[in-house]
């Protein structure tokens, strides 16, 4: 049989020799490291901080491959970013695969390879994992879960908690918004847009570490994934009881994303990102943080997009490019294209 036509079978998850071969030939081959090589039931992890951050995320995405990434790369970036915005330095990941019977082995390996490459870029080690194969139709091709452990320094342990935020603080983002959501939607649906939109899927830990190491001004960080920038800012306004004002003309956004949003009736502020971080910082440190971020490839288009305000308590207000103002709400569910 042509190796390209090899499929994942139920027996690949049976615990027998075939499963052992899959683990050796696909997973260990790409993930190889000292801790994993021990092949113990649980990984024993050296830590060098008194506290650790721990998080988990499951990845179900259609299509599995999209411009700018695939589910494997995404599974690393998502968990690495969740740790990073909590002020932690990501160190270890677990990876679990739930695979639908009949899934192409070469696709699985491409995903595993990409996952391993992203883990190397992010400087995290995959220390444990699991594989299950389910009957055809019982899952959609491939689901991945990753959990991550990161080291936390005392100085950084508050950045996920939105403490000490006050009116005047600036809101910074490290680049264009809406790229991931629109790239995936364009790959999934039948629009036939010849769109150059590419997912921003990236691990942000190095960028975030540079900011935290060089500036004392960071008060809050969050990655605006599902629900987009609007969801994070509304959560922040809600949590702090303060207002947030965003300047539409300052929002970095590509022409491609803007055009797709115009056509489909979406607001880019509601569209998912996978390589973006929103930072709330002391106003005096805003320009300094911007300067630090712009030195990193993932922060070239960083911008101050708004401020925390004393009025409009609990609300996010957008100053539109046309001189008006409007409330930016959180979406009730998925964004749905509108008819008119």
């Amino acid at each position, binding site marked *: 049989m042509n190796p390209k036509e090899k499929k994942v079978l139920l027996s690949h998850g049976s615990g027998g020799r075939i499963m052992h071969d899959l683990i050796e030939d696909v997973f260990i081959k790409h993930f190889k490291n000292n801790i994993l090589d021990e092949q113990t039931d649980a990984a024993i992890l050296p830590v060098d901080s008194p506290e650790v951050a721990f998080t988990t995320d499951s990845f179900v995405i259609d299509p599995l491959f999209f411009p700018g990434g695939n589910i494997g790369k995404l599974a690393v970036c998502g968990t690495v970013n969740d740790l990073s915005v909590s002020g932690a330095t990501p160190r270890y990941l677990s990876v679990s695969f739930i695979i639908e019977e009949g899934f192409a082995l070469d696709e699985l390996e491409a995903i595993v390879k990409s996952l391993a490459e992203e883990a190397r870029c992010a400087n995290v080690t995959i220390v444990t994992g699991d594989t299950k194969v389910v009957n055809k139709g019982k899952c959609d091709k491939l689901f991945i879960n990753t959990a991550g452990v990161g080291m936390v320094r005392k100085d950084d342990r508050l950045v996920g908690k939105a403490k000490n935020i006050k009116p005047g603080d600036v809101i910074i983002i490290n680049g264009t918004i809406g790229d991931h959501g629109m790239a995936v939607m364009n790959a999934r649906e039948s629009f036939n847009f010849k769109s150059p939109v590419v997912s921003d899927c990236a691990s942000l830990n190095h960028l975030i570490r540079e900011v935290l190491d060089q500036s004392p001004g960071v008060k809050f960080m969050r990655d605006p994934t599902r629900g987009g920038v609007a969801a994070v800012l509304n959560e922040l306004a809600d949590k702090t009881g303060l207002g947030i004002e965003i300047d539409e003309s300052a929002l970095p956004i590509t022409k491609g994303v803007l055009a797709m949003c115009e056509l*489909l009736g979406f607001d880019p502020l509601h569209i998912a990102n996978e390589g973006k971080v929103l930072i709330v910082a002391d106003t005096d440190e805003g320009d300094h943080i911007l300067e630090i971020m712009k030195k990193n490839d993932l922060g070239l288009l960083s911008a101050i997009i708004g401020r925390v305000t004393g009025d409009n308590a609990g609300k996010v207000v*957008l100053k539109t490019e046309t*001189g*008006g103002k409007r409330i930016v*709400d959180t979406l*009730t569910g998925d964004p749905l294209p*509108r*008819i*008119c």
Partner: protein
Amino acid sequence: MKYIDEYRKKDLILAVSEELKKISKKQITLMEVCGGHTMAIHRFGLHALLPPTIHLLSGPGCPVCVSSQHFLDTAIACSKIPGAIITTYGDLIRVPGSVTSLEKEKADGADIRIIYSVLEALEIAKNNPEKAVIFLGIGFETTAPATAAAIVQAKNENISNFFVLSAHKVMPPVMKALVDEGVKIDGFIAPGHVTAITGTGIYNNLAAVYGLGVVVAGFEPVDMMQAILMLTLQLESAAPKVEIQYKRIVHPEGNKIALGLLEQVFEQKDDRWRGLGVIPASGLKIREEFAAFDAEKRYLLTVPEPSDPKGCICGSILRGQKTPNDCGLFAGKCTPSDPVGACMVSGEGTCATYYKYRS
């Protein structure tokens, strides 16, 4: 972006805003009929740019909001037909029927697919000859010609498993009905894309008989502000008439090909509007010649007569007679995530908008 940026120029918008503040003396109420206009007003924050003399009222032109509960109940009944695939524009799936919604039925296993063009529904029908593909036809003169074109194509290509459940509506009867019912309106910001199809003749009576101003407007902020300025000038000089602001798209005679398709496939019927009741000759039903594609005739589905949700005052809100704050359900039993009435359903509905801005 071409055709967008030039119509969002801040200095132009502010110049119109200044001019409006200078010339507006009379208290006037303008109704923006189209949901797209309501959306643009909120998206660009235009309320803040108008003088206090000019009041904007949202009209019944959001196709999702006005689709009746009876239609939703019938669509939901269609989704339960064995072997049926329901194809629909996305924003219809959360709209509540009497007991459930298409979104909930989908979760229960019904095959309900969101499409972006009715031609996709035709493709799905071609690729699934053993299934019945039912398209939920909603919208005004803007979307109805595309549905008509799909039905003609299905007939020409002998696609026998494609059906349309039509809740398509036409605009003039509802605009006239609102005025007849005594809703206080001085002028209409008329729907740009509907008029691109129909032409401006449909508004002549509103100006000539009812003395209302009518300006057909585009959907960008400069369009909207200019249309409001044109209406204000008309009303200040007591010379109401029909004018086109959206000249780059709308011609007085409309789109003859689209009108021909509408005439070929549809005929007018009395139709139900959510919150407004039955309005004579306001809906489009499929002509006998194309009955083979009419889901209503194919499946003869009857659903119980739905009653309006208790306590809901959407009808009065759609007529501009009451505000959401007058409603006992507002922001309690009726919220965007669990809407009871029409005006809370679409993000652009009056209640949904009030909900967003509530303090």
